[in-house]
């Protein structure tokens, strides 16, 4: 492999190396990579720190889109809310690289970059992710790193049970040692508050909310509570099933689509449910490869095919969301125009 002079100046994790996106990266590598994405694509990439973890680390997203004067619609994607699901941050990195690689030449991606901003958080649970890299015995950490309270000495709250969405009702534990501990109260975790605040500010603009996890090969639609249905359940299932078809077309992998209580287990307090509850119409949880053969420790040689198929699925959902907003809108405007013209013609005809 040729190592250019440029690569010799930067770290060996330089993304010009063809195999960067086929390896897992620790938090400092991902942070350096975010800086590199901004540096290499200054007109379309900026970053935003939108919160702090328990251990006071920055929670950072990349905002990607062609700049425009007006307010833009948005797509939200976050990865790594559960620390051990390493394939998820790998996918966020791949997704960013892919839209940056193709937006100049792919007319659809270009159009979406014009009309939308992508808000992508490569690692949401920064403390947990760093902890899972500490040594082999911490690799399977899931939760945040906030300490237990009230005499319970274990660490961590399940951030994806901590959102204000039917909090504490089902699929959670009140034992702080449990992997699905929902916290002392909703939004006890600063990570959940950071996402909640951002979504609150942006909610009228967000067309789709995608939260990336592993494992299981599933596309989950709201809600996690078995007795509550999303108002657009049919639409969510239709879009999800089409996304699963797009995924299968890449490498033949089956992804099952459904609500969490149907295809996995009931749960409450998830970010996906919160997003749908505040009005974001298309809200999906992606559970990436595999189905349990390796589980959380997915081999690096599966990173690329997993990301390729997940990208196809995400791309389908994002395209649907975009077209629904921008082509339906145009259709509505056209219809309104005709109605107005017709009314004017009719009234002028009457006057004559």
């Amino acid at each position, binding site marked *: 492999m040729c190592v250019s002079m440029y690569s010799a100046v930067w770290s060996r994790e330089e993304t010009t190396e063809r195999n960067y996106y086929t390896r897992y990266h620790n938090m400092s590598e991902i942070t350096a990579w975010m800086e590199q994405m901004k540096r290499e694509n200054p007109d379309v990439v900026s970053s935003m720190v939108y919160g702090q973890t328990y251990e006071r680390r920055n929670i950072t997203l990349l905002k990607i889109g062609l700049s425009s004067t007006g307010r833009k619609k948005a797509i939200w994607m976050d990865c790594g809310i559960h620390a051990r699901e390493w394939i998820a941050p790998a996918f966020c990195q791949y997704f960013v690289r892919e839209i940056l690689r193709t937006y100049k030449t792919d007319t659809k991606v270009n159009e979406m970059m014009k009309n939308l901003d992508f808000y992508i958080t490569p690692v949401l649970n920064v403390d947990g992710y760093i902890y899972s890299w500490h040594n*082999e015995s911490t690799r399977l950490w899931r939760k945040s790193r906030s300490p237990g309270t009230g005499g319970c000495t274990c660490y961590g709250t399940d951030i994806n049970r901590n959102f204000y969405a039917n909090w504490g009702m089902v699929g959670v534990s009140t034992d702080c040692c*449990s*992997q699905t501990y929902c916290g002392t109260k909703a939004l006890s975790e600063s990570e959940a508050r950071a996402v909640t605040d951002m979504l609150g500010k942006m909610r009228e603009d967000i067309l789709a909310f995608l939260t990336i996890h592993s494992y299981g090969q599933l596309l989950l639609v709201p809600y996690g509570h078995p007795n509550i249905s999303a108002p657009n359940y049919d639409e969510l299932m239709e879009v999800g099933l089409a996304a699963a078809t797009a995924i299968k077309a890449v490498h033949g992998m089956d992804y099952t689509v459904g609500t969490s209580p*149907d295809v996995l287990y009931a749960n409450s307090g998830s970010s996906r449910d919160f997003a749908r509850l505040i009005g974001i119409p298309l809200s999906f949880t992606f559970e990436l490869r595999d*189905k349990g053969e*390796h*589980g959380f*420790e997915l081999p690096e040689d599966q990173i690329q095919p997993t990301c390729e198929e997940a990208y196809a699925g995400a791309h389908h959902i994002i395209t649907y969301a975009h077209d629904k907003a921008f082509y339906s809108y145009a259709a509505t405007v056209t219809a309104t125009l005709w109605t107005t013209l017709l009314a004017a013609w009719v009234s002028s005809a009457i006057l004559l």
Partner: protein
Amino acid sequence: MTTGVLNPSHYPARRAATVVQHYLNTRYGSPYRWIFLSKVHSGSAEDMAEMRKYQLELTMQEMISNVSGQCSAELLFPGGEGQSAPQVQASCEGLLQSNPTAQEEAFYQQHRASNNMVSGSNIPDSYGHMEPSMKPFWHLGGVASSCIMLRESNESTLYNMAQVANFTQLETEKDQLRFNYHVLLHEMISQEIIHWKLLVTWSPEQGVKVLQTELQPKCHDCEAPPNTTN
């Protein structure tokens, strides 16, 4: 509890199908034979006295040869207070042959002589990687884990082996290879990682046997429960 025809993509059928997978591995698994659920085609569940009975049509895949086969299975989950294991009956087409393979024989002969005890740890490692020579021990750990996963399964669990934390070969006894294994199981519904220590034997003729199991405490300063013998 869902009763009647089951949706094959919903969790009741999938959890029951995974129990069938564990059963098949305990019966037929080896360092070179590792069976995994490929697809649930159809299923049904019914209440029977104190039990829940499932019937399933499945495709299972043997992961090393990549051969797939259709299986019909029947499971009984015991109800009531007892902690007993589910009972499984399954028949598969084209998937399972009982004769040991050449690979199994060679592996057995290679490790039978006790002058070079094998051991390993973190299989797979954090990056999902394992040395090729460790793969048969990974499968063996998976098969041994299947004994526990089968025993511990009910309608509210979904088990997979997350990792072989470590294994050590012991002296061959009565022509059986013997190992101490420390495995990590992932239970999907609770999301817990459960540690078990196992005493495992294997030979091509006798298959995998788990002689002792010991649940490891979750926290380091807890009391370990007493040894359990199968």
